[in-house]
């Protein structure tokens, strides 16, 4: 700051706001040209900035799914009667389960141990006899290691057998029942087919912007601190603000390109609906990108060492955005202190907002709340980063 002071004193009266501005633009553009060249020269950061997001889009869109399909189930029919066969017939028709009929329990257990089936359905010898008394039992044994798939499979098996049992009642119809039954009519709002891709793909925008903003920026700028190239810039007549802006500008552009790729992929490849306003989605995403860039800048200014910057950025931004932001793990199920930790992360607020904007629509209270918090983060991070930069210069 002080380096510039004499010059501005000398000509302060003649200087107009516009010549200030033109000086700013001239210096800024010169710096920007240097930074862009530097970014383009090393392919490794472009690989992380542009190639990794493409890989993530494809992986999340096509590769990762919580939707269990064709889960192999060993079916042991100890009761060979037609009624018993009919009861388990419902398993066969669905896309979700792939029943494999085996002759006895020991074979089924062997298959489960080797991992070739995910569960065993055992229809005991006395099934149809007890069915006449109304207390038939079947046994479902699941491999609990993959607990969420196991729960899903349990739901499918319950459904398939429940439907058959209900049909038996309807068909029987000869003796009227004393009471009716409650029938669940389920409607899943925002994601009628319950496809996990629909919430993974919008969440991916959060991950990618965190990656470019916080991780990449902190790493690259920490390198400049480590090598002293940033300090050598500070002694030139260029103002610190201009240096910082020119450093983060290329990553703002990379982030914007990534955002565009995510939006195009979610629409054209994965057909995720956009029920809110696209303009708002783009605006809040850019706001979040600015917050992550500032976070990255702040981390790099504090640690000033590449290795530590990468570790801190991973620990403070990327891993929590993946694990604790409500991306795949629903925060409602976590203990209170985890919810507090997650509320501190900007990623959590952006995650809730982007899912709402994609799937539910413009819900103004959510938009105002999240935008308010993200703006607050931007302001606070600007202040602390400035303070940190000033401290370093002294």
């Amino acid at each position, binding site marked *: 700051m002080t380096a510039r002071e004499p010059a501005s004193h000398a000509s302060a009266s003649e200087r107009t706001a516009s010549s200030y501005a033109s000086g700013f633009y001239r210096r800024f553009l010169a710096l920007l040209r240097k930074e862009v060249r530097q970014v383009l020269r090393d392919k490794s950061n472009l690989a992380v900035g542009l190639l990794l997001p493409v890989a993530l889009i494809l992986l999340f869109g*096509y590769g990762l799914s919580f939707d269990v399909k064709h889960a192999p189930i060993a079916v042991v029919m100890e009761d060979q009667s037609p009624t018993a066969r009919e009861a388990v017939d419902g398993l066969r028709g669905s896309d979700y389960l792939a029943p494999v009929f085996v002759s006895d329990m020991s074979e089924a257990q062997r298959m489960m141990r080797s991992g070739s089936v995910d569960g065993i359905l055992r229809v005991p010898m006395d099934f149809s006899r007890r069915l006449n008394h109304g207390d038939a039992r079947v046994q479902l044994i699941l491999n*609990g290691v993959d607990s969420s798939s196991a729960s899903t499979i349990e739901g499918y098996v319950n459904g398939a057998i*429940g439907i058959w049992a209900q049909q038996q009642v309807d068909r029987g119809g000869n003796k009227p029942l004393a*009471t*009716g*039954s409650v029938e669940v009519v389920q409607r899943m709002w*925002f994601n009628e087919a319950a496809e996990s891709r629909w919430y993974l793909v919008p969440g991916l925008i959060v991950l990618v912007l965190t990656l470019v903003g916080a991780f990449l920026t902190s790493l690259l700028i920490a390198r400049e601190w480590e090598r002293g190239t940033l300090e050598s810039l500070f002694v030139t007549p260029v103002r610190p603000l201009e240096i910082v802006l020119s450093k983060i500008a290329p990553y703002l552009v990379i982030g914007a390109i990534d955002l565009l790729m995510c939006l195009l992929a979610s629409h054209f490849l994965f057909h995720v609906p956009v029920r809110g306003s696209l303009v708002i989605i783009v605006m809040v995403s850019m706001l979040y990108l600015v917050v992550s860039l500032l976070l990255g800048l702040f981390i790099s200014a504090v640690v000033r060492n*590449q*290795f530590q910057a990468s570790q801190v950025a991973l620990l403070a931004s990327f*891993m929590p955005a993946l694990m604790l932001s409500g991306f795949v793990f629903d925060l409602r199920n976590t203990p209170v202190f985890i919810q507090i930790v997650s509320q501190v992360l900007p990623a959590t607020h952006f995650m809730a907002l982007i899912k709402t904007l994609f799937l539910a629509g413009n819900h103004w209270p959510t938009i105002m709340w999240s935008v308010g918090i993200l703006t607050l983060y931007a302001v606070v991070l600007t202040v602390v980063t400035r303070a940190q930069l000033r401290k370093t210069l002294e």
Partner: protein
Amino acid sequence: MTAWIATLAQIGALIRKEILALLKDPSSRVVLFAPALIQALLFGYGATFDLTNVPYAVLDQSRGQAASQLVARLDGTGVFHRAATLSSSTQIAQVIDSNEALVVLAIPADFDRRLNAGQRAPLQVILDGRNSSTAALAASYVGSIVASYNASIGAGGRGITIERRAWFNPNLESRWNIMPALIGALSMLQTLLISALSVAREREQGTFDQLLVTPLTPMQILIGKAIPAILIGLLQSTIIFLVIRFWFQIPMSGSIALLYLGLLTFTIASVGLGLSISALSLTMQQAMLYTFLLIMPLMLLSGLITSVKNMPEILQVVTYANPLRFGTSIVRRVYLEGAGLADVALDFVPLLVTGAITLPLAAWLFRHRLS
């Protein structure tokens, strides 16, 4: 014989130097162990698919006995908590949109009348599908409560009870599934990074050329670089293992020796990958970026969060090149299933192949990537 001892002494000196370089700075010492510990604790609590808290709202237009009995059963689970009581169907959108309720039960006016008349009484269940996995779990929970209610009033089919038992994880807790997988994932994150930086750092600082002109052969340099990274990887795995076993108290069924044999093989394969990256990179920055470029897909395709079986066939084939997939599989199966060596032997093969390719490759690259 003396030649052998001399070689070992040379490698030993290099290992000592590497370990000192890693531990000399107090802040790097912290960075080596604190992240693993913090992440193991945070993710242990945060990474869960189990429903523990489902806020729901009720729109009861029947105001009858059956409806209140059904809702009381929901409250009795301890999982469902009443967030709102609605008086008109226009309020449904409001409580769902604002995240106030995950589930809305809409009970029509003729609910009791239909039940008493022996008819089917529809219960409308509206779910917030913004996280469709949670919503689907909540739906199946509601479904099972309704089924047990039906059974209690003597309806609902001719009484087939499905007795569920789960092997290896009796309460189907998702933490049991995720935590053992974190042993591999979290330690890999750092072993890859440490080994990727080890050669790149010396290249950037110009000391690697000095190392190459010493009497050490590339293979000896490789061993000297690999062993410290392997030790740190195993130490990190141990920290996470202890958190899982004693903090979260997830019972271990298998043998510790086999678990560590698996972890050792897995860590060697990871270090091989890391050293190959390192030998290819000219600067530390490149080494870190390439590591990150690699680790994200490796973690996502490992079965850590979503099961490998749910992936498309092509990607399942790709995962054979992923040490984390097999490391995770060995740890999970030994830890939870109590699998023996014969059960997991096949999982060792891809790890050994990865190690056998990457380690010699790295040694070769030491000399042949000088530019």
